[in-house]
């Protein structure tokens, strides 16, 4: 065994410290969400809930957090579906057709550049543009503007999948007289399906957690997404920590469940393909 892979006592101590540093804040959010408001503002914090309560969760749900939850869900899913459809079509065109003026590579490189542009730079002109066309303070406006994040990401990943696809299937189908649309929908789409699902994870996470554009574009309380709700909580109710943490946990669970589900589906999907 090499000196790199050897594990001694020091290793186990370091491992414990690292795991503790990662888990302690996460434990703290869970513990705080189950404490009563008075227990949360004791001058001497308690290490675990002495009085276990679900009150915080009930409270935030009664205050209408589900509304924000649905907003976030709607925006994240729709933005992802839009990105996947657009990038599937465009990636297929880029992978199978050589556009004039080197447009293929110019476009793909520009899309990479977009990923390093700070969003606040794009925010000013987009704000004026969206105000003019009435997309400010609308969830559809958010869905469109989130394409700034999700579309470049999806384009590159889906382009990779389509590049990896052998052209022979499509050629055979063309000889059999299948139309372009037919080839795209009944041959290319099923073959890249698993890849599209995998791509959707990060796209959903990005849109679910996005903060800056939501802050700038949404004004009405009924339209707020979860990250906005959390930041309002931090600002307005200095010490309603139990409720704040309950919102935080409610905002985290869907992402964990979703990635777990997709991951599982993907691994079973691949093994089915092998059979």
């Amino acid at each position, binding site marked *: 065994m090499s000196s790199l*892979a050897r594990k001694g006592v020091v290793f186990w101590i370091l*491992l414990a410290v690292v795991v503790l540093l*990662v888990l302690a804040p996460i434990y703290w959010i869970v513990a705080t969400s189950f404490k009563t408001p008075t227990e949360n503002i004791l001058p001497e914090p308690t290490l675990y809930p002495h009085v276990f309560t679900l009150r915080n969760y009930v409270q935030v749900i009664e205050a209408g957090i589900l509304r924000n939850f649905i907003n976030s869900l709607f925006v994240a899913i729709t933005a992802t579906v839009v990105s996947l459809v657009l990038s599937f079509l465009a990636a297929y065109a880029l992978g199978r057709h050589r556009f004039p003026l080197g447009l293929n590579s110019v476009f793909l490189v520009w899309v990479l550049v977009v990923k390093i542009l*700070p969003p606040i730079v794009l925010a000013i*002109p987009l*704000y004026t543009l969206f105000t003019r066309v009435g997309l400010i303070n609308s969830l559809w406006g958010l869905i469109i503007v989130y394409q700034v994040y999700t579309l470049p990401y999806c384009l590159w990943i889906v382009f990779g999948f389509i590049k990896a696809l052998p052209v022979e299937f499509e050629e055979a189908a063309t000889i059999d007289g299948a139309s372009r649309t037919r080839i795209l929908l009944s041959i290319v789409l099923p073959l890249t399906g698993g890849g599209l699902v995998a791509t959707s994870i990060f796209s959903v996470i990005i849109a679910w957690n996005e903060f*800056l554009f939501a802050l700038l574009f949404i004004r009405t309380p009924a339209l707020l997404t979860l990250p906005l709700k959390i930041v309002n909580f931090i600002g307005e109710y200095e010490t309603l920590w139990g409720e704040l943490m309950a*919102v935080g946990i409610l905002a985290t669970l869907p992402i964990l469940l979703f990635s777990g589900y997709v991951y599982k589906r993907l691994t079973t999907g691949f093994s089915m393909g092998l059979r």
Partner: protein
Amino acid sequence: MIRQQRGNLFYYVIFLPAFLVILFLTIYPVFSVLLNSLFRYNFLAGERSFLGIGNFLRIIGEQMFRKAFLNTLIFSFSATLVEASLGVFLALLFYGNYAGKRLTMITIIFPMMLSTMVICAIWKTMYHYEIGILNHLLTSLGVPRMGWLISKRMALFSVIIVDVWQWTPFAFIIVQAGLNSMPRELFEAASIDGAGYLSTVFYIVFPILANQILLVFLLRTIDTFRIFDKVYALTQGGPGNATETVSYFIYREGFSFFNLGRASAAAVYTLIVIALIASFYIRNILKKEI
């Protein structure tokens, strides 16, 4: 021939939607920012008059913008450096097989999966001066309380800690992917030749991992340079202007005062710095490839 042309049209049709979206959401705004930076432009008042480079000269002369710029550099540089170093350290620590490896790997990646706002919520409560757990731990150790977010000297440092907690896992993932792609025999050969831990790390691991480490630096520098969410949620730029950053400056100029000209000029400064940073790293990464 006709079929061929119709086939080409098909490609144009399916490419167009994504192309238009990218055009409207990115190319138009970038040109618009470049143009607006040359104007005195207040969105609310609707006034707009040509100013040339006046905005650029004025904001760079202002103490607030300089402070914001300096803070952003400090934040970006230190957060990136700490995250990359810790990432390398963790990748080395977790190399090889041991009981419970899968579980610890999943645990370590966890902070990356949380939303930034949730993370800010946790740390804001832990940083609380009177009833936060961190100050409680300090006082029980006999150390005086610290004004994590309310002291001018500490605030930026505290925001850096939050970023390090959230993004070190990312550095770790990239570096450990590089480490695991190296043939194991390499390290075993080094051991047989009598190389100790540190010399293996310095003479074998670092040179081969140089690309991964540079990539971490590139991605984290670019991402930390746009720091906004954490400042907004944790300190709002305060106390005073201790945590004012360029993004926050642009936000305030553009969306509180609606001075789009000044905000655009600050945005152009950001673009220039980002372009410099990216080209510096990319040139180094490419040099390594050759």
